[in-house]
């Protein structure tokens, strides 16, 4: 009970819970439609989803300030690439929240002249840019960690005779220049890279969570902007998974990717 009280005291946590519920409703609605459930039940689920969406817009009022504050903090990061990616991502998020506030004003009847479609498209565009920046940052971090990992691996293999990889593989991993460009060699290189990636991600759960979350989130604006129509089922599932992962990072702060 104490953990629920502490969790729900954060406004972001409540918003994430509503998001999870919204995408669960979307997924459920799609499943019910496919299996021919009663139109009454489908209408109820759609209505609940609509209420959740509007409620979330109200819960998010004021998040622009939060995003701008995070962008201000990110400007002081030491690494250039990280600084660029994170700052631009937060700025795009701030713009996304601003568009979202305009949509709320339109839906609440305060500004009836607001073109819902146009502003919704705008908001999804900013959301997409922010996700692309997040994924670029993730890719950069992964690249750094893989380089670090392969150099430590190489040093360990040079030092000791066998090592975890086989003798031939060890030479390939340590060496660098390829003896010719044969296909089996490339396949081996690819396998090594994949193994290295898996090792890096397994050793850094916050990074893994962030990658999975951003990838799942990516499907939502891609579908809504019409760039890659994946259907409401996929969107619902991806949204639900990413919401659960972000709730996890709120419950366990060590799982959050710093900075």
């Amino acid at each position, binding site marked *: *009970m104490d953990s629920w009280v502490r969790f729900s005291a954060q*406004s972001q946590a*409540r918003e994430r819970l509503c998001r999870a519920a919204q995408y669960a409703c979307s997924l459920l609605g799609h499943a019910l439609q496919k299996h021919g459930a009663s139109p009454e039940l489908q209408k*109820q689920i759609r209505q*609940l989803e609509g*209420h959740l969406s509007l409620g979330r817009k*109200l819960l998010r009022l*004021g998040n622009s*300030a*939060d995003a701008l504050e995070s962008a201000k903090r990110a400007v002081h990061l030491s690494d250039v690439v990280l600084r660029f990616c994170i700052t631009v991502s937060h700025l795009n998020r701030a713009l996304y929240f601003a568009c979202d506030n305009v949509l709320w004003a339109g839906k609440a009847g305060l500004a009836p002249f607001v073109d819902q479609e146009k502003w919704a498209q705008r908001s999804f565009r900013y959301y997409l840019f922010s996700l692309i920046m997040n994924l670029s940052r993730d890719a950069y971090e992964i690249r750094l960690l893989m380089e670090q990992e392969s150099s430590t691996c190489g040093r360990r293999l040079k030092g000791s005779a066998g090592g975890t990889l086989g003798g031939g593989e060890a030479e390939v991993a340590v060496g660098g220049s390829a003896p010719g460009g044969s296909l089996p060699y490339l396949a081996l290189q690819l396998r090594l890279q994949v193994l290295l990636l898996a090792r890096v991600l397994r050793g850094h759960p916050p990074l893994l969570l962030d990658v999975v979350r951003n990838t799942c989130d990516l499907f939502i604006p891609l579908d809504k902007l019409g760039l890659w129509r994946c259907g409401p089922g996929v969107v619902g599932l991806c949204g639900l998974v990413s919401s659960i992962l972000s709730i996890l990072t709120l419950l366990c702060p060590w799982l959050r990717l710093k900075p």
Partner: protein
Amino acid sequence: MDTFTRFTNQTQGRDRLFRAIQYTCMLLRYLLESKADREKVVMKLKKLESSVSSGRKWFRLGNVVHAVQATQQSIRVSDLVPRLCLTIANLNRVIYFVCDTILWVRSVGLVADINKEKWRKWAARHYYYSLLLNIIRDVYEVSLQMEQIAQEKAKREKSMPQNHLGPCIADEETEWLQSFLLLLFRSLRKHPPLLLDTVKNLCDILNPLDQLGIYKSNSGIIGLGGLLSSIVGMITVAYPQMRLRTC
């Protein structure tokens, strides 16, 4: 902006801010309703008020657990009167949140056959009881403070005998009222959290009094009362040392 972010990161902070906006709209509507060419503004204020009010329900979902926890904490209070008052007040809050959740279920359309009026009356009644008990507790704490200050004053006067002109018999009653008010003022000034809590409860009770028909006021007074109590709520969230402790 950093303080604003930290404030709005707490659910209660955000909720109090929206509550302040909701009651400001109510107050402004009351003030502008009588004016001739302000119908559009009044309508926009009404729409804003109703969206904020329905959106705030999302902040209250799950608060039953908060109220149950508060009840458990209030059972452990040392002094008898506050323990009794707070425990029963928190129990009433639990019932209020249960009624509120049922009303939410009705408003999102999950269950259609719920008697909204009946549950609304129930919610208002239990909210009223909980506020009443909080006010009784505040009065008890104020009286304790006043007693303490009066005793200190008596001790000081005993140690330093003064020669003051005795009051004339006709002024005894006004003098008693004056000294009572002075004592009240001093004890509230010495204990700001108690003052804030008393103001908040007194402002909050106007709404259920109106809803239950016990004391019908107008939307202007309710709006002003709600706005004041929301501001006090925001102060206690921003400065936790201003919250009245239960010890």
